[in-house]
C-alpha cells in the first residue's frame, strides 16, 4: 500500500513533470504578454503628457541612462483632470446606470427563459440551448446593424405597426438614437450570457426539493422564492457579472444605436483616443474603468469560492 501511495503522484497524473509545467506556464505567459504588459504601457501613458508627435505623448523611454529624468516627468495631471471635467464623471455614472438597468432587464427576461428551459422535457433541452447560442453564428456587428434596420424611423418596426394598424401612416417609431435603442441592443446581445449560467444553475436542481416543499405545505409560488431562487443564486451572480462588466465598457452598441446624448464611458474613451488623440487622458480613463470593474469581479470570485 505504501508503495502505491508513493508512486501515485507521478504515475497517475501522467507524463514527465515539464509537460505539467507547460500547461501551467502557457496561460500565464499569455496573460503577461497580452494583458499585464499592455496594461502597464497604458498605465505609463496615463501618467504622461500629450504631445504633437509620434507617439503622441512625452516622455518616451530613452534608455536607462535617462531613467531619473523619465520618471520625474510622470504625474497625476490626467487623473486630476478627470475629476475636474464633469463629462467624465457623468460618463462613468451613466455607464454604470445603463449597465445596472440592462443587467436587471436581462435577469427579468433571462430568468423565466432559463427556468422554462430547465423545466422542459430533457429530450428537447439540448435544442433549446442550441437556439440560445444560435445568434453567435452571425457576427455581433451585423446583428447590431440589423437592429438599426428594425428601429430606424422608416424601419421594419414602423412598417409592422403601420400594417397592423397600431400606428397611422404618417407616424414613425422614435426609438432609434435614444437610450431605449441602446437598452434593446444590449439586452438582445447579452441575453445568452445571462441565460446560460442561469440555466446551468437551475438545471442541476433536484426536483424532489420542490416536491418536498409542496409536501410540507408550501404552494409553488412560495416555493419559487424559498427554494428555487436562493438555490439559483450562483447562476444569478455569474450571469449578472458576466453581463454587467462588459456592458459597462460597451462601445459598439451605444455608438451605433444610441443618440448624441447617450453617454457611455466606452464611447468617451474612443473619442479621447481617436477623436482628440489625447492618449494620456484616454489611458487614465481606461485605468479608472478597469479599477471600477475589478470590484464586481472580486465579488464574483468570492461568491464562486463560497459555492465550491
Amino acid at each position, binding site marked *: 500500500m505504501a508503495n502505491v501511495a508513493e508512486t501515485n503522484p507521478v504515475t497517475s497524473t501522467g507524463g514527465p513533470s515539464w509537460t505539467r509545467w507547460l500547461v501551467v506556464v502557457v496561460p500565464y505567459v499569455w496573460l503577461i504578454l497580452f494583458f499585464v504588459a499592455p496594461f502597464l504601457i497604458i498605465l505609463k501613458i496615463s501618467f504622461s503628457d500629450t504631445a504633437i508627435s509620434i507617439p503622441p505623448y512625452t516622455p518616451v523611454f530613452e534608455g536607462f541612462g535617462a531613467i531619473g529624468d523619465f520618471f520625474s516627468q510622470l504625474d497625476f495631471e490626467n487623473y486630476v483632470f478627470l475629476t475636474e471635467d464633469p463629462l467624465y464623471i457623468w460618463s462613468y455614472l451613466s455607464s454604470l446606470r445603463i449597465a445596472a438597468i440592462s443587467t436587471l432587464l436581462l435577469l427579468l427576461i433571462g430568468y423565466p427563459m432559463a427556468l422554462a428551459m430547465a423545466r422542459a422535457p430533457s429530450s428537447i433541452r439540448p435544442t433549446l440551448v442550441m437556439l440560445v447560442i444560435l445568434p453567435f453564428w452571425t457576427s455581433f456587428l451585423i446583428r447590431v446593424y440589423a437592429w438599426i434596420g428594425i428601429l430606424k424611423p422608416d424601419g421594419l418596426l414602423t412598417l409592422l405597426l403601420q400594417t397592423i394598424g397600431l400606428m397611422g401612416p404618417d407616424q414613425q417609431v422614435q426609438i432609434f438614437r435614444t437610450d431605449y435603442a441602446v437598452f434593446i441592443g444590449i439586452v438582445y446581445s447579452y441575453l445568452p450570457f445571462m441565460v446560460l449560467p442561469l440555466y446551468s444553475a437551475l438545471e442541476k436542481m*433536484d426536483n*424532489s*426539493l420542490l*416536491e*418536498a*416543499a*409542496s*409536501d*410540507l*405545505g*408550501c*404552494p409553488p409560488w*412560495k416555493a419559487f422564492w*424559498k*427554494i428555487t431562487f*436562493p*438555490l439559483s443564486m450562483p447562476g444569478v451572480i455569474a450571469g449578472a457579472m458576466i453581463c454587467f462588466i462588459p456592458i459597462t465598457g460597451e462601445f459598439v452598441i451605444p455608438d451605433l444605436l444610441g443618440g448624441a446624448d447617450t453617454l457611455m464611458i466606452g464611447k468617451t474613451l474612443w473619442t479621447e483616443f481617436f477623436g482628440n488623440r489625447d492618449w494620456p487622458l484616454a489611458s487614465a480613463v481606461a485605468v479608472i474603468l478597469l479599477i471600477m470593474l475589478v470590484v464586481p469581479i472580486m465579488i464574483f470570485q468570492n461568491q464562486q469560492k463560497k459555492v465550491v
Partner: protein
Amino acid sequence: MAKTLGPVKRKFSPWTDPNAVPFIRFENITKRFGDFVAVDNLTLDIYEREFFSLLGPSGCGKTTLMRMLAGFEEPTEGRILLQGQDIGGVPPYRRPTNMMFQSYALFPHMTVEKNIAFGLEQDNMPKGEITARVQEMLKLVKLEQFAKRKPNQLSGGQRQRVALARSLAKRPKVLLLDEPLGALDKKLREETQFELMDLQHTLGMTFLIVTHDQEEAMTVSDRIAVMDKGIIMQVATPAEIYEAPNSRYVADFIGDINIIEGKVAETASALGAPGAVRIESEGLSIAVDQESQAVKDDHVAFAIRPEKVRISLDAPADTATNAFYGEVWDIGYLGDFSLFIVRSEDGRFLRAAQANVSRLVDRPITFGDMVWLTWSRDAGLVLTR
C-alpha cells in the same frame, strides 16, 4: 428511540373487525403513464395507527401508489379516500400527509433547524411554538448539537434523521416513507427500523412505507401488501405472508423457499383426512394437510421453507411420502444456521436449513453425504396461483 415505557403494545388488528372504518382507502385505482400501466385497478384499505408496508420489486407501482396519496400524481381512474373524504384534486401542499423522501430532499441552503421548521412556518405557527417543536424534534432524532449545520456537513445517517424529523414535525395524519433506510448500512438500518416502530407507536400516527427490502417490511409492519406489476398479490400480516403465501410469486419474493411443481393425485375424500391433498411430482409423493381449492389433476406447486425441512443421515419410517433422498451438494454456513442443498439422483434440488444450536465447527453432515430430507404434512403448502 426513547427508552421510556410507552403505551403497552397491544394486539392490533382493525382489519379483522368488519365494523372498522379504513383511514385511507384506495378505490379501484388505475394509473397509466402513456401506455405503461403503473397501477392496475387496485383497491386497498389502511387503518388508523397502522404501520403498513408496500413491498415489491422496482417498477411494481408501489412508489406511484404512495405518490398518489401524497398528491404528486393523480390517479387516471378511481379515487383515494382519506378519513372518508375524496382527496382527488387536492394539491400536495393542502394534504395532511407528509413524506420522507428516498433522496431525503433536504434543502441544501438551510440549516438542520430551518429544514425542520420549514413545514411549520408554512402553517404560520407562532415563532415560539416553532422553536419549541423544532427542539422537540431535534431531541427525538438526537441531533440537538447539529441544529446549525447545513445538510452537506452531515453524515448519511444524520441526514436521514433530519429528513425524518422534518416529515414528523407537522404531526401529519399519515407519514409516508419512501425507501427511508435504503442508503444506510445494515447495522444502522436495523437500529433505525426499531426506532421507527417505537416512534410510530409513541406518536400514534399512521405510517405507510414503501420498500423493496422484505426483511425491513417484515420487521416494521403491522401489515404488508406485496405488489407486482401494478397489482396487489397479497395483503396480510408479516407472519401470514411468510407462513401462508397465497401464490408462487409471494412465496418466492419473501424469504427462502423450495417450490416443487406437481400434479394433484388425490384430494381430501380419497385421503380420508378433511382438506388434505396428495401431490405427485416425478416420483415424489407429497401429502399436505391444507384446505385447498385444487382438484384432481390440477397443476399446483408445493412450497416449503428450508427451515421446516428436517435433514438426517438415517432413513425415516415412511420413505414413500414427504421424503427426499439425495447427496449433500452444497452447504451454506450462515452462522446462525446452515443451509444444505441436496441433490437427488435424478438431478433435482431441495434445500434444508438447520439451526446451529451447538458450537461445533465440524458438522456431522458434510459434503457428499447421502441424506434424507423429510417434512411433516402441515409444514408446507399447496399453491394454485
